[in-house]
């Protein structure tokens, strides 16, 4: 398709919309790629507003990798806000890229980042806004291939009717392989269907149209199997073995206008083996792969010099667990480029005094608030979810924070967890009140905020079988909490809308039939469902009814061990037996330690993929008990012996005797 800039037409709309800088591109670090008939053009799309999507590191990493490829170019797009979309539709303007302002449909590939389920209706809307048929079966010939990846792709079934192919796991390598496959397909003049079959041969690529779902008479799934020969029965996720080989993003985008997380970000490790049973990210991103400290230092120092940011975040699922955390912080603080004006942030703090010590070192400048996530209110509840934080850990951390100058503490909890009793809910309020008391010892007016989220069970976790709490039940529990915190002036309770948790539940564990629900919600105006002012549960319940699905079946029902789950043909490397065992252990409150520092219990990932943890220190971090030094209530099961390589600059801790076995 012919490519020309839509900028003059776009600009004529900008005086009439909010935050017009969302649509101009021009960020520091943005590329202006030259398209050619010989290259494969990707449009990387984040299906939410610019200020939410721009900081996404996954998208920025793939943007650079593709633009470095001699035969690929990549541009970006975000969901135009409602006012802009209305003007675009009235003027017949399609979704456009931010760099060259080309029409989305003129690209070879439209690739969506799936970071949250409630953005799914935006995905449909953006495909439609591109002028492309929403359903993949109606696309033909030259139209772009619609691709999706990201954490939510581990249950892609609700989007299976709309997306041509999904990528499971780390995208660094597959985007290059897909590019090369598309170049081959173009040279060989393959049809769209032939191209898709050829792409399905790439490890980690799932082409849903090549699989048939057979349902039983009771509505459950009988099987999900390839509908043509030669397509793999089960798709395994992709994993980057060594983060040191991928120092991306090298040129982090610096937006011209306000966005969330507006700071320099450096990913210090990927994967987490704390083993929190509710946490999908911790399950699907195993094993742990740390970045070498020297590389972290270089990325921080070059990044700050290039971007001019005065804040750097060391990102990961639990950055205090990074072996090189103290050294990295020391490096940043000692860097002459930072000259005392740069603050460091750790987006997810571990709950212990040691971690607060780190925080006090790095937040010398702006000591505003600290957030801890005990997640469960009682020790029993925390054993169920395997978040093994003792009250001593929490109170020690809170005491350390208040005594070292912080006045605001935020605590994050989940309600609606498996086996939860009302006393577990009340205990959340009690914990928070105890934290207020600690605060009062140090400050006249401390603030404690307890944020409570309604738990949504996620695929590929031990809780994937659990029946989600109903919206009514979650509301009742919020009511209990409101009663229990009454009268404590220094304590604020915040909670996530239980109705949004219900909609998220539909999209999270639904099967292919939920696709029609998403389409119904979208066609009835349900876009930007992540935004509370745009969310209305009725659109979702109406859609479920119209499609003939029950909320009870999709969301509230507990699944049995032998039930075929909609994502069972897709693998995150975890043995189904491991997940089931963890589910059973959860129900009796049995804990599981962190396999980074204790022997392997064979969840399946390292053994199955021939991978190893990449951690520089074979010892657990000092000061934290979580999953390391605590006495577990039950004796650990038999382990495979631990092998530790001799200490060196960078040590590989390996659970299996040699790489490549199993």
């Amino acid at each position, binding site marked *: 398709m012919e490519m020309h800039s839509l900028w003059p037409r776009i600009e004529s709309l900008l005086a009439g919309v909010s935050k017009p800088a969302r649509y101009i591109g*021009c960020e520091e670090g943005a590329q202006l790629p030259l398209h050619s008939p010989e290259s494969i053009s990707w449009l990387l799309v984040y299906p939410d507003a610019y200020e939410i999507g721009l900081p996404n590191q996954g998208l920025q990493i793939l943007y650079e990798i593709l633009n470095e490829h001699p035969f690929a170019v990549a541009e970006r797009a975000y969901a135009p806000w409602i006012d802009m979309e209305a003007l675009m539709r009235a003027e017949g303007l399609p979704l456009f890229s931010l760099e060259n302002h080309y029409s989305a449909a003129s690209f070879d590939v439209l690739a969506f980042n799936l970071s949250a389920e409630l953005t799914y209706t935006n995905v449909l809307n953006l495909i439609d806004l591109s002028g492309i048929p929403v359903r993949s079966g109606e696309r033909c010939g030259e139209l772009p291939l619609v691709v999706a990846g990201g954490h939510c792709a581990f249950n892609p079934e609700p989007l299976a009717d709309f997306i041509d192919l999904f990528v499971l796991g780390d995208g660094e390598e597959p985007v290059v392989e897909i590019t090369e496959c598309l170049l081959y397909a173009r040279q060989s003049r393959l049809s769209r269907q032939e191209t898709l079959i050829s792409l399905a041969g790439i490890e980690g690529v799932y082409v849903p149209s090549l699989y048939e779902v057979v349902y039983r008479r009771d509505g459950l799934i009988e099987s999900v199997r390839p509908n043509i020969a030669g397509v793999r029965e089960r798709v395994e996720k992709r994993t980057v073995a060594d983060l040191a080989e991928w120092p991306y993003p090298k040129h982090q985008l610096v937006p011209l206008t*306000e966005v969330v997380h507006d700071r320099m970000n450096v990913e210090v490790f990927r994967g987490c083996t704390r083993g929190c049973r509710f946490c999908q990210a911790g399950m699907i991103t195993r094993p742990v792969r740390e970045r070498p400290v020297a590389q972290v230092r270089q990325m921080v120092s070059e990044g700050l010099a290039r971007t*001019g940011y005065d804040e750097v975040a060391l990102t990961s699922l639990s950055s205090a667990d990074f072996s090189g955390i103290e050294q990295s912080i020391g490096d940043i603080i000692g860097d002459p480029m930072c000259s005392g004006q740069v603050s460091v942030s750790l987006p997810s703090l571990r709950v212990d005094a040691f971690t607060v010590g780190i925080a006090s070192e790095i937040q010398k400048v702006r000591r505003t608030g600290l957030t801890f996530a005990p997640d469960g209110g009682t020790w029993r509840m925390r054993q169920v979810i395997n978040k093994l934080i003792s009250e001593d850990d929490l109170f020690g951390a809170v005491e350390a924070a208040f005594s070292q100058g912080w006045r605001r503490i935020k605590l994050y909890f989940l309600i609606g967890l498996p086996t939860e009793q009302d006393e577990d809910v009340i205990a959340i309020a009690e914990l928070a009140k105890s934290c207020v008391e600690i605060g009062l010892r140090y400050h006249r007016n401390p603030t404690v905020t307890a944020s409570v989220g309604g738990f949504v069970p996620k695929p590929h976790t031990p809780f994937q079988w659990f029946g989600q709490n109903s919206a009514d039940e979650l509301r009742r529990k919020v009511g209990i909490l409101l009663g229990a915190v009454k009268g404590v002036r220094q304590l604020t309770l915040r909670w996530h809308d239980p109705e949004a948790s219900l909609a998220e539940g539909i999209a999270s564990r639904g099967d292919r039939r939920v696709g029609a629900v998403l389409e119904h919600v979208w066609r009835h105006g349900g876009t930007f469902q992540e935004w509370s002012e745009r969310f209305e549960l009725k659109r979702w319940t109406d859609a479920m009814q119209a499609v003939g699905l029950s909320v009870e079946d999709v969301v509230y029902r507990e699944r049995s061990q032998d039930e075929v789950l909609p994502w069972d043909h897709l693998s995150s490397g975890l043995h189904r037996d491991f997940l089931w065992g963890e589910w059973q252990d959860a129900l009796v409150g049995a804990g599981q330690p962190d396999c980074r520092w204790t022997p392997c219990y064979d969840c399946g990932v390292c053994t199955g993929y021939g991978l190893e943890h990449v951690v520089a220190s074979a010892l657990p971090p000092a000061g934290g008990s979580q999953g390391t030094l605590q006495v577990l209530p039950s004796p650990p099961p038999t382990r495979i012996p631990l092998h530790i390589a001799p200490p060196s600059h960078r040590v590989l801790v390996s659970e299996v005797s040699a790489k490549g076995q199993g």
Partner: protein
Amino acid sequence: MARLRIRFSKLGKLRWTSHRDIARMWERALRRAQIPVEYSHGFTPRPRISFGLALPTGSESVAEYLDIEIDPSATGDAMGDPWDLASRVDEALPVGVKVLAAVWSKAGDPSLQEAVCSCTWKIGLSGLEHTELEDLLGKAMASSHLVVIRERKARQVQDDIRPALISAVGGDLRDASRGDLGAADATSVWLGSSCAVSGGDPRGSGQPLGDGVGSIGAAVPKSGPWPVTVEIATRPRGARPAELAQALAGLSGGACVVRAEWSVRTAQWIGGGASAREPIALAAAPALRALERAS
């Protein structure tokens, strides 16, 4: 204390960023350029920079200003050529924002906010024929009130912008499209050459220019946009180009839907009448340097 006063432009796609966006952009650029900016000593240290009048989002300018306090321990007594620092930060600014000139100013001088009392704008007005425009401008200058509806604290209020309107004259018809604002003096030459790319991509990748942005002598539609040069006071309350358009539409009795298609702030003025001067006039030496760099 050494204070560096900078005159800069905001042109092209960047005009859709806000005043706050521009402030953040400068803070980052100053850090990238490693300019020894003085920081406040409070609980949250902030770089000591102060901006002049806010430019409405969507407008362009070749007359934006900011003052930067430079850490004297880093520069010493020999403050040197201000352009040395200014050119360093210029390289760290995004395309579309450009340092035009820089001077050292005295710490005791009044701030830009206090000193500037009026601005000159070039505005392209559309939605009416040229004779109608000339007629309305005459009426506007002759009238005692020019009422516009403004949103203030989420409430709609009526304001009179007539006190802010110092002068309003129709421009040369050859200036009708934004691409040919050019005239004889250095400012306008600079303005003209930079505006030639502003309708397309600021990186100058040769994008086609939009409607209404043509070469000199190109036919202008009967409804404009027509260039108008206005001088607007900043006190007690200024007026935006869009508000001038609204006021003219009101004067026409609803006969014309007047729109400000484009607007460029071309000067800010300290002092009124014959003694008016710019905080930094581009006719001075730095402007010639700016000119060299722009070509």
